[in-house]
């Protein structure tokens, strides 16, 4: 499904060059539920952007569904994004002057679906997420959890193969975060690959596979079976972190 081979990426800032990704090798199967973790600056957002074809990489190869993604024109990239990928963002990124239904229907507009049909499909997706009554509401009339559910509906409507979520729960309280994670889990059960970037260990623990990045390299990959171990380590880490505050 997703195959990354020695991906390198650096940002040039004036005379300095910042090497963000230093050779990522990654293989994600169809239907995986993956979280990417790491401290800030470890390159996890950059990795997600490359996965979502929002950014180019410098060297290496990236295959998505058997297609080599490399130096493609903006138009081609836009088409791939529209067909294969659904995005969910920390700050929801809904268009403020369109109502929930129109926001959800937007990807279909770029697929050339007629207005009536795309609005009907959008309503179906909103209903699945329990937001049918909110279809005509503007984003600023909704709570954070509702906005994120609208965003998920928007990501799903084009029936993508991958959902990329950049800190989907970062702006939500923990109860709503778990709700959103439940939805993503259901989405994953339908066979769609879900990749989320997160800071929060409890959110990451709900996924099947955790990729930890450190300084632009994959530090460790924790698979489903080892998650219990991970949880223990995480608790231990927390305790360890708390010690200095008593000293």
């Amino acid at each position, binding site marked *: 499904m997703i195959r990354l081979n020695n991906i390198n990426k650096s940002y040039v800032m004036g005379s300095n060059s910042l090497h963000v990704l230093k050779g990522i090798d990654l293989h994600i199967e169809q239907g995986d539920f993956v979280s990417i973790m790491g401290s800030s600056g470890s390159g996890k957002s950059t990795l997600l952007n490359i996965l979502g074809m929002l950014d180019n990489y410098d060297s290496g190869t990236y295959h998505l569904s058997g297609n080599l993604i490399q130096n493609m024109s903006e138009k081609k990239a*836009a*088409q791939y*994004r529209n067909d294969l990928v659904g*995005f969910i963002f920390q700050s929801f*990124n*809904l*268009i403020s002057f369109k109502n929930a239904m129109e926001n959800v229907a*937007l990807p279909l507009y*770029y697929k050339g679906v007629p207005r009536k049909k795309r609005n009907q499909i959008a309503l179906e997706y909103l209903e699945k997420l329990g937001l049918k009554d909110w279809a005509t509401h503007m984003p600023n009339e909704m709570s954070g959890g509702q906005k994120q559910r609208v965003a998920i509906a928007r990501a799903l409507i084009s029936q993508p193969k991958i959902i990329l979520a950049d800190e989907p729960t970062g702006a939500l309280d923990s109860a709503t975060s778990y709700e959103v994670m439940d939805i993503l889990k259901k989405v994953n059960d339908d066979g769609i690959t879900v990749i989320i970037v997160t800071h929060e260990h409890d959110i990451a623990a709900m996924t099947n596979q955790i990729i930890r990045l450190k300084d632009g390299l994959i530090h460790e990959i924790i698979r489903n079976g080892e998650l219990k171990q991970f949880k223990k380590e995480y608790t231990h880490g927390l305790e360890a972190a708390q010690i200095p505050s008593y000293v």
Partner: protein
Amino acid sequence: MLMILLGSGNGLSNGVAANFMNDAVNAMWIWRGETTIPYEGMKSGRPIQFHNDDQEIVQKVPGVGVSSGRYFMGNTRYSYLKESGEYTTITCQPALKDVENLILNEGRFINDLDIIQKRKVVVIGADIKTALFKDSVALGEYVNVNMVPFKVVGICAEPGSTQNRNAYMPLSTAQMIFSGSNKLHNLALTINATTLEESQAIEEQIRNVLGKQHKFDPKDEGAIGLYNKLENYIQTMKIFQAIKIFIWIIGIGTLIAGIVGVSNIMLIVVKERTKEIGIRKAIGASPSSVIGLILLESIMITTIAGYIGLVLGTGLMEMINYFMMQGAEAAAAAAANGGERGESIFLNPTVDINIAIYSTLLLIVAGAIAGYIPAKRAASIKPIVALRDE
């Protein structure tokens, strides 16, 4: 803005064109003079006299349309019952009607039969009719012209002129009754020419044939006088073309200023909507669809604003037109009471539907130009930059 400029420019040229229309634009007048250059052994200062056969000669020159000889009788006394007055009598041939664009209010003009049969008929100007006949019917009545009774067959007016104090009678009749010779004072004719060069060529040919006939140097400017209306007309029209071009330049200048303004606004709009455009691109909007979005918006802005301007401008023009029409009517009324009226050089300052359509198209093009740079910028927005949390 462009509308007002174009409208007033149109008004100016319409007005002048209407003044020219008083006579046929391709009219030419030839009058006699004195030779100023010795020719074939004859001294200068010899007067030239036109005769009836000169008109026939000129008529044969290629490029001459219709022609008429004219014999002025100066002040002639016209009387009917107790009313009488002195007016200018122009004796002519039927073609003069076309040369001078005379309008017949009633009856007919001199025709060929009048000339052949030397009928004693007269076409009087509208003012003469008013003075002699008041409100009674003039057609078919007999007026005494220098004590000779003539039948009134028509009442005419010169377009654009408020003084119709001329009377027209058949050349042959007048020559027989009043002068007893075949002399002509001048020749009026129309020429079939559309360009300055053509008309000047015809002019030269006329000088040549008349020079041969009367034995004067064709280059002798004094021997015969010649007024070429087309030459004058073309020159004036050139001036108006220049004015029109000038007006267009100013108009386009204002338009460019407008384009820059709208372009700036659109740049700000794009900046404000960076995030939205980023979202759209992340969702799968291609660069071309983003350009389309911004261009459409820009075209909408310019077209709506432009249309309001168009309506306002046209409204203003119509208003000016309305008041000027009233002014013209008042002036005509004053002229009818014996007052004098200056010819207006400003007529019908409106723009026609074609210009309105063109300017609408122009607005759309302007909108597209105004929106192009902002749209390009919008298309080059990188979604990752746009979506970065502030």
